[in-house]
């Protein structure tokens, strides 16, 4: 494979930065959550690239764990959004600004 490893690192970092932009700039809690999923996948890509550069298969196991934890996080986070929507009728993060109720 003639693709230089630095190209994979650059692609992963750019995807991470795009996810970061979404997480910081979006208002809808669901879009923020989607951006966080994108950031996790960008880090997975970086793990795979570094693992290939070092010849270490542990990176695959760590990516496996990241995916499992992302699945758990998605289930709980979406349940939180459903509960939030039931009590406030919105999931815009700007309008959920009270720590009471």
């Amino acid at each position, binding site marked *: 494979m003639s693709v230089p*490893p630095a190209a994979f690192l650059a692609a992963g970092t750019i995807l991470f930065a795009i996810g970061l932009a979404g997480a910081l700039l979006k208002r809808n809690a669901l879009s923020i959550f989607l951006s966080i999923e994108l950031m996790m996948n960008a880090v997975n*890509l970086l793990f795979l690239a570094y693992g*290939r550069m070092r010849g270490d298969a542990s990176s695959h196991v760590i990516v496996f764990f990241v*995916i499992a934890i992302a699945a758990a996080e998605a*289930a709980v986070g979406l349940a939180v959004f459903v509960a939030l929507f039931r009590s406030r009728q919105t999931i815009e993060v700007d309008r959920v600004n009270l720590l009471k109720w």
Partner: protein
Amino acid sequence: MTGGLVLFALAAGLAIAFALAMIVETSPVRSVLSLVVTFFGITVLAILLAAPFIAAIIMIVYAGAILVLFLFVIMLLNLNEEAREKDARPVQRVLGLVAVLALGGLLLGLTLRAGAPPVAPSAAAAKIPSPDEIPLIGRLLFSDYLFAFEAVAVLLLAAAVGALILSKRRMD
């Protein structure tokens, strides 16, 4: 220009373009569908990195399960367009954009500067052979990472129970 390089450019370009589309898009459904294309590109990149099993897992778990869950929630909550009535916090948005550009540029510069491989790439190909990936991961999971593996199992159970309790209609 070899085939691998063309495939990499195609997959990385697709992933980055649709990630940007996901950020720009105001409709949540279209955001999710853009992210599916991005994950497809990431899957191709994982295959290029000699990780076909991880690529399959990303496709099945992320695109197949997590994003479908997102679509279910979007339809359950009946979200269509993001409300754009008033840009209530322009200063924070500008600050966020500046922070993203600064941090993204910093990360990109650092990863590219520190990108020199500590081990020769030829050694990598010898130690992670593609047909032996699944037995290798299985052995590592049940030896070095056994405790983490069991802990993740408990975490998944706890998450399932927590999601059920959170989404119950009446808490009392």
